[in-house]
């Protein structure tokens, strides 16, 4: 089942007069892990934030072009619907400091004012935490504040929080760059589990990570999508010179 879920055509994004994403055309297949890599400042994070319309929260940020999810134009939907369908996990773990672990998982429901029966809530919390392999570690301390957890646990809690909303796509903005190596590998293992239910788009500046976790890789350079291919092909036989230079470490 290789149907396209996210599709962008001639997509551009800027901060004021600073043009950071240029004419990006990409088709992202459902239930795959896509890595987006490139040197810092290449526009990969901006592009990711455009997918669930977080980009426009920054004053002066604009975008143009076509961005579709299931053939619906994201920019004709209300951002709230977009973000309910496309969840996001950030660079630094950001659990809500005033909420318990339990409440953090169902934050999307609780803070949106959606009433759930206690049984439903419990099920969602257990299910989401199990999916991020955190349930066994925290099931006895669900009432503690989220900030008591270690960095890696906090990041998995944030993934659980996004998963609890049952989105179709999950965006990860350098999800392991603030984590230690052991936590990083735990999070990376999750990606394989999660792709059975979701489509994952992961921005990373770590090439090894892209190679390890992704099915397809997109390489951004200076705001352009230089190359987009199967990860294996990309790392063994890149078509573009710039990709070649990047993966052999000639610039970073």
């Amino acid at each position: 089942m290789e149907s396209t879920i996210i599709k962008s055509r001639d997509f551009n994004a800027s901060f004021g007069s600073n043009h950071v994403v240029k004419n990006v055309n990409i088709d992202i297949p459902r239930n795959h892990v896509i890595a987006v890599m490139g040197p810092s400042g290449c526009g990969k994070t901006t592009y990711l934030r455009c997918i669930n319309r977080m980009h426009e929260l920054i004053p002066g940020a604009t975008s143009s072009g076509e961005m579709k999810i299931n053939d619906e134009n994201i920019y004709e939907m209300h951002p709230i619907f977009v973000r309910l369908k496309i969840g996001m996990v950030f660079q630094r773990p950001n659990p809500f400091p005033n909420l318990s672990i339990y409440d953090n998982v169902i934050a999307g429901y609780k803070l949106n004012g959606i009433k759930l029966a206690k049984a439903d809530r419990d099920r969602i919390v257990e299910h989401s935490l199990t999916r991020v392999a955190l349930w066994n570690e925290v099931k006895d301390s669900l009432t503690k504040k989220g900030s008591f957890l270690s960095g890696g646990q906090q990041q998995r809690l944030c993934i659980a929080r996004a998963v609890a909303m049952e989105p179709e796509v999950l965006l990860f903005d350098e999800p392991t760059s603030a984590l230690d190596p052991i936590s990083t590998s735990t999070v990376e293992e999750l990606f394989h589990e999660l792709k059975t239910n979701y489509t994952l788009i992961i921005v990373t500046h770590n090439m090894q990570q892209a190679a390890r976790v992704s099915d397809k890789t997109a390489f951004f350079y200076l705001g352009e999508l230089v190359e987009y291919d199967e990860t294996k092909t990309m790392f063994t036989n890149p078509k573009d010179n710039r990709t070649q230079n990047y993966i052999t470490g000639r610039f970073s």
Partner: protein
Amino acid sequence: MNIGSVKYRIGKSYGFQILTTVLAFACVIPLLAILFFIIKAGITKINWHFLVNVPKPVGEAGGGIANALVGSIIIIVVASIIAVPIGILAGIYLSENRKSRLAYWCRLSVDILQGVPSIVIGIVAYFWLVKPLGGFSALSGSVALAIMMLPIIVRSTEETLKLLPDSLKEAAFALGMPFHRVIFKVIVPVGISGILSGVMLSVARITGETAPLLFTAFGNPYLSTNITKPMHSLPLLIFNYATSPYNDWHDLAWGASLILLLWVLFLNIFTKLITRKWKVQL
């Protein structure tokens, strides 16, 4: 190098350090003197009778300040009801819109409001409310005090919310939360201690304000709870009785001063303690 001149310079340095220290601690003396004197003069006047009775006419001993106590509380509560929501929302507006043109003018206005002499606020409230409504009223006093509370609340809300990391807001937005829920369910609860201390500081400030009430709440020798009628307040009572020639009234004023002073100092110290506990920067 001449050893003598070095010694002289070191001596001079110590001399200035001692002078600075002495001058710095001298600032505390007036405050201690005021505290000491007010407690000494006021403590003997305060008893249950003093708190639950209204003032007696000149010549009769006894009497209390119940009307002023009740009036102060009512005026402050009404002022807070007006100022707290407006102030917090305006603070949210400023922290969310850092660069817009309106935000610039809004910030400038708040700065100006902060420095406006309280007597001027009294004049303005007189023309906005007392004259149109046809008489002095507690409500007009509350409005005047609310105007004085606003800049403190707006500023503390803005400063508190500005310090919260953007990642918090992004996390909330990414869950598909609408803007108002992001603010009220995530941003405000996390910054609540800073906002609350701003509110308490503003209450502490207006509790002792007299000038704006002279032409608005005006004062009332009887116990009144009608906010459309003149009402007494502690600082007004102190002003009226302190400048009167009667000793009985001076006694009432001392008692009232002690209560007002304790009330204000308590609010200030309490606010300091919670800001320190929550590590809020104001």
